[in-house]
């Protein structure tokens, strides 16, 4: 193949590449007249002129919103390596408002260019990054706004909770306190009846008085418990290092009668020193242990195991109180911590249903958690997480 034919084909290739360029491309002279427009640019111009006839020869100001002088000046400046932004002369559906062109200078042996190639650039070079930047900023603003709102909500919820706690506390205290005196009065009256001598009452009536006394004493226990509980609501406990081994020794000593009465065995492993309030911790373990004894299995002697796990990285230690008692069905496990919630009838096993509510309250006040799980060997395991006392 001759080199001449090669060159011709090469040039043909270039021309058809220019023609087929999926962009608007034009060859423009120094008077802004368009000498060659590729298919893309032709289509654009036809679309712009719509029903009007497209002039045989056209210049940049025929198509774009720019004066002849400015067009030449802009081309000269952009030929240094920038793009120029040309607004279309009229708005047309389907056509962009503006087109950005890269400009190249063409020189035929002269220092000054006599022609320019304009090729449209896809998109606005700054548009995308600025849109991204804007989106980022908007996103950040939105996040900040949501966080602010969330914080306000939390603050409000916290305030509401504090207010509700205070109200509940004074209400509960008032109720339980005010209930106590009529209770005492009735109890006194019953004693009077008794003092009149059982002879004065027939057997049936004496039995009724006895039942009333029993109910009254249960009620007074309940009120006593309620009073204890209300003291815990919303209270902040002063914390100090509490050696759990000592706490447990005291609790076990206090429960001696119940433990021997039920021929239960209580085993404690090595226990950590936690951050807490000694009296509250005693109330806590007293309740857990007395539950484990109260709700023991009728077919086997009660066995209670208290052990601790190594503190994790959060400085929390896990303490497990495991029993071999009647256990708690999974569907009731969450409920037992609720106020007055009991799974047993009072005449079977007495209680107010306040013990665990109080336990959870105490643990919450110490920033810990209390949950219950099934003991794989039968019975329940109460799982406590408490803060380890720090040395400082």
């Amino acid at each position, binding site marked *: 193949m001759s080199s001449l034919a090669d060159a011709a084909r090469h040039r043909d290739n270039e021309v058809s590449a220019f023609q087929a360029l999926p962009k608007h491309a034009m060859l423009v002279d120094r008077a802004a007249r368009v000498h060659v427009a590729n298919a893309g640019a032709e289509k654009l111009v036809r679309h712009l002129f719509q029903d009007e006839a497209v002039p045989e020869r056209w210049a940049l100001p025929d198509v774009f919103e720019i004066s002849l002088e400015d067009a030449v000046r802009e081309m000269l*400046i952009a*030929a*240094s*390596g*920038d*793009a120029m932004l040309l607004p279309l002369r009229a708005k047309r559906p389907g056509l962009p408002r503006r087109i950005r062109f890269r400009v190249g200078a063409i020189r035929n042996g002269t*220092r*000054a260019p006599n022609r320019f190639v304009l090729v449209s650039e896809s998109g606005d070079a700054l548009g995308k990054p600025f849109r*991204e930047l804007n989106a980022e900023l908007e996103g950040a603003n939105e996040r900040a706004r949501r966080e602010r709102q969330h914080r306000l909500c939390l603050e409000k919820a916290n305030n509401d909770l504090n207010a509700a706690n205070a109200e509940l506390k004074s209400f509960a205290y008032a109720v339980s306190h005010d209930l106590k005196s009529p209770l005492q009065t009735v109890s006194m009256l019953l004693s009077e009846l008794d003092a009149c001598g059982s002879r004065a009452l027939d057997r049936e009536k004496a039995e009724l008085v006895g039942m009333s006394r029993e109910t009254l004493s249960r009620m007074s226990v309940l009120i006593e418990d309620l009073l204890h509980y209300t003291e815990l609501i919303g209270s902040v406990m002063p914390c100090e290092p509490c050696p759990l081994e000592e706490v447990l020794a005291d609790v076990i000593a206090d429960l001696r009668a119940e433990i021997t009465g039920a021929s239960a065995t209580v085993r404690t492993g090595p226990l950590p020193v936690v951050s807490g309030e000694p009296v509250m911790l005693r109330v806590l373990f007293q309740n857990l242990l007395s539950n484990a004894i109260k709700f023991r299995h009728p077919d086997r002697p009660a066995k209670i195991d208290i052990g601790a796990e190594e503190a994790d990285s959060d400085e929390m230690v896990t303490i497990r109180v495991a029993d071999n008692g009647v256990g708690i069905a999974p569907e009731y496990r969450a409920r037992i911590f609720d106020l007055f919630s009991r799974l047993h009838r009072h005449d079977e096993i007495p209680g107010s249903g306040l013990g665990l509510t109080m336990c959870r309250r105490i643990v919450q006040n110490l920033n810990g958690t209390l949950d219950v799980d099934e003991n794989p060997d039968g019975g329940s395991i109460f799982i406590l997480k408490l803060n380890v006392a720090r040395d400082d």
Partner: protein
Amino acid sequence: MEMAPIAGADKVISRNRDEFLRELLSELANVLESRVGLEAAEGFIGRVGSRIGETMNEEYRAIFETDALDVTQVAQALVDLKERIEGAFKVESISPEKIVLVNSSCPFADQVEGRESLCMMTTSVFGRIAASNLGYARVEKPQTIARGDLGCRVIVHLTEGEAGREFFG
């Protein structure tokens, strides 16, 4: 409402208007460079430079009472305009082929370090003025303070070639 000045603020904040504007420009250049890349950032700043260059060109043509400055007048103009903004450029050599200018401090002061796109300001002001009067210019910067050199060395070529950015008149 009358506001009392903040006590002790002067100890912490020392920038005056001039420093503030330089900082602002530096930050703008920073945002541009990191968002659109150095090349596009230079394009935009070059655009601004070209406009300023055109205005200044008109001023110098009026001063020299001519329609087109000659090589020496162009060199004089470039030094003069930089002097006015504390750029302190000196002409190292002038010939029909090129004007070589050097400096040891930058009008953007220490704000310029690492902000190469700001140099495009000088490039395009120089290039625009030279090309408008002499038909063609090619501005090359072999050394710049922004890139860490001790001074800037700007060559305004008046003949065609590879290196640098071309300007057409």
